[in-house]
């Protein structure tokens, strides 16, 4: 098109100036990507520092229930480490007791004990955990149940000593 050619009608109505368009070069685009990668790396380091420095409330030792009040093969519900943390104790046999957080590690539903199958069962998404270890048997959960260390003291009381993820 020559310089003295009349401007077409469409160009007067919709002026499009390619030269004014802001062009992003490959190098600029890649620089943004690198900046993003750097930001994510900084975030990861921050998360690691936070994980290292924070203190999770693992609970203070306290009595839960008298061992005699829990039947062999029976369970006892309690709250630990805080009042809004449901937990459950299982008396496996005369000597052995175990306790776990009752929150399913999938989406936080409450698990309950299935005595026939000897497992913890989450009814929300059919997750199953081993009765004595809390390890995943089947279903969507990928992490074991939160463990609560317990012991029987001389007075026959079961004490919770602390919670572990």
């Amino acid at each position: 098109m020559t310089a003295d050619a009349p401007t077409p009608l469409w160009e007067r109505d919709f002026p499009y100036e390619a030269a004014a368009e802001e062009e992003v070069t490959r190098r600029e685009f890649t620089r943004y990507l690198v900046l993003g990668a750097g930001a994510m790396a900084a975030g990861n380091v921050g998360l690691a520092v936070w994980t290292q420095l924070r203190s999770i409330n693992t609970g203070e030792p306290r009595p839960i229930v008298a061992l005699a009040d829990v039947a062999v093969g029976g369970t006892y519900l309690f709250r630990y480490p805080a009042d809004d943390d449901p937990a459950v104790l299982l008396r496996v046999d005369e000597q052995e007791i175990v306790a776990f957080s009752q929150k399913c590690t999938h989406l936080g539903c409450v698990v309950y004990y299935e005595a026939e199958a000897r497992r913890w069962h989450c009814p929300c998404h059919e997750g199953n955990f081993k009765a004595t270890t809390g390890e995943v048997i089947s279903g969507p959960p990928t992490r074991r149940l939160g463990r609560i260390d317990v012991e029987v003291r001389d007075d026959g009381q079961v004490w919770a000593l602390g919670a572990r993820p």
Partner: protein
Amino acid sequence: MSIVRRPRGTSSAVIVYVIILVSLQVFTVTVAVEAFLTDDEAIAWATAGVSVALAGMAAAFLRYLRR
């Protein structure tokens, strides 16, 4: 001052490498969050190290990109 001419294909390759590295970074972020939620300090620090290394590699690739 000499100008180093690199073939155009080099630029595309560098961008592809950087995009792959950034994608891996997104994966490391998910691993870091998982480690944070499970209070797994060892994985959190390992992830942070890998993430910093990936960012360093991405920055190094930037040098090879034609202007």
